């Protein structure tokens, strides 16, 4: 099976705004950043200026470990547009230290058929323009 090399992939990029900027640019400092309520410690993702657990407005961007576990995944085989290289792995990663938060992402740097539920993964940022995309690699 073919290895997916992250840099060969064309990607749509997010429009940065006040809510999402710290998430999408944290990779500049090598940090995966999430919003967290400073009163009850709930992580809030997608980022919003209020806590969904306690309605506190003391919500701040904090760095998390950048590791996690593959909660589920799929191997995409369909070329949704002509420039697309397939197959590739789309996964939902449960983040360490941020209960309840999942990221949809790609698992890169390994054969597509080697990914499974429960795999330990670590973030690997890919910069495109002013955006640092959190992709993930298997650990070990």
């Amino acid at each position, binding site marked *: 099976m073919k290895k997916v090399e992250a840099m060969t992939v064309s990607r*749509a990029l*997010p429009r*940065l705004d006040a809510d*999402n900027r710290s998430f999408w640019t944290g990779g500049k400092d090598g940090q995966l950043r999430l919003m967290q309520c400073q009163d009850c410690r709930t992580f809030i993702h997608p980022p919003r200026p209020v806590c969904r657990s306690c309605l506190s407005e003391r919500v701040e961007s904090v760095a998390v470990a950048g590791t996690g576990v593959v909660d589920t995944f*799929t191997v995409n085989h369909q070329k949704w547009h002509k420039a697309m290289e397939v197959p590739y792995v789309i996964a*939902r990663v449960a983040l360490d230290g941020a209960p309840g938060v999942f990221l949809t992402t790609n698992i890169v740097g390994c054969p597509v058929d080697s990914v499974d*539920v429960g795999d330990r993964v670590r973030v690997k940022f890919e910069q495109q323009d002013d955006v640092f995309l959190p992709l993930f690699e298997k650990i070990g």
Partner: protein
Amino acid sequence: MAAAEAYITGVGQSAVGAGQTRHPLLLTLDATREALDEAGLTIAQIDGVSTYPGRAQGYLGFSPVGADELIDALGIRATWYAGGSEISSQLGAVVAAAAAVRAGLARHVLCFRTVYEAAALARPEEYPPLRRERVDGQAQWFAPFNATSPANWTAQYAMRHVKRYGLTREQLAQIALTARANAMLNPRALVRQPLTMDEYLAGRMISTPLCVYDCDRFTDASTVLIVSAGAALDEVRCQPVRIAAMAGTVERHSWDQAEWMASYPTGRDLWKRTDYRVEDVDTVQLYDGFSFFVLTWLEALGFCDVGSGGRFVEGGKRIARDGELPLNTFGGQIGAGRLHGFGFAHEAVVQLRGRAGERQIGGDPRVAVCTSGGGPLATALLLARD
């Protein structure tokens, strides 16, 4: 007939095809005419309009006709109307209409869903997709990872069933096989060739574990359901079907932050609002934009336990047209075309009236469940001829 209740009276549908050239507003008119004709109503008696998701400016094929546009085009005098995407999926438009007639805001609400996805794809010069430099809103969490298709999102939920509960491809295949067999008996179905297990298993993978036969297909069509107030049934000629219960829930409007799909709480809620029980249901018309949704609906509605949907449909006999729980008797979206939610309510009404022709199920059906959505958005309706 109870005055305070809501009923589905007329139902109608345009021609169903891929690459139609008839204007989408006229397809909507075709479906409207058929529904009015069946109900014995005239357009002058329609005083409400409800749709999902309204005119989709950025992607016209998905929804080319808005509620206000239809009101203007057909000269409807609306005392109430609604159209928008922030409701509990496609049949949420019927929930809104039922609430409106029960509140006395309208007597006969024309609910419609018009799709033009195949035509728009084929004629981009007429229906240009809106291109943005950057993505925002929900799309930003998926598009950068080339996870833009609902197939990818649904596949990940399906994969959890594979890993946790041992769902097999042979089990999942029964949804598509059943749909395609039923579509053979539906003269309006988009796909009218049978599908075998061997063909299914050899099907091209789209996003594991979903193959090409697990996906519905772009379709051009319009479906209309008229929702009437109990107090206005004396104006109607057809057999009314009561909306006996409705549910539409959202835990988190997200394809990746919710632990489970919205079908589960929606299915549970439905039975809290009725004296009918699971055992009373004669047929189910369950959303199959992707085959896997059907398994979640069967589990959510309590026909089987969570995780056992695959075993429930195994072999296909139970869900066949002559089985104990006939499923998607018109072919579902996989066989009949991507009518987008409204096809399930349309078929439930047709079956409960005994007017399904060659595909009519036996046993004088009186109670049906129909659903739409199942991902972050879900609606379930319990329909009864009582």
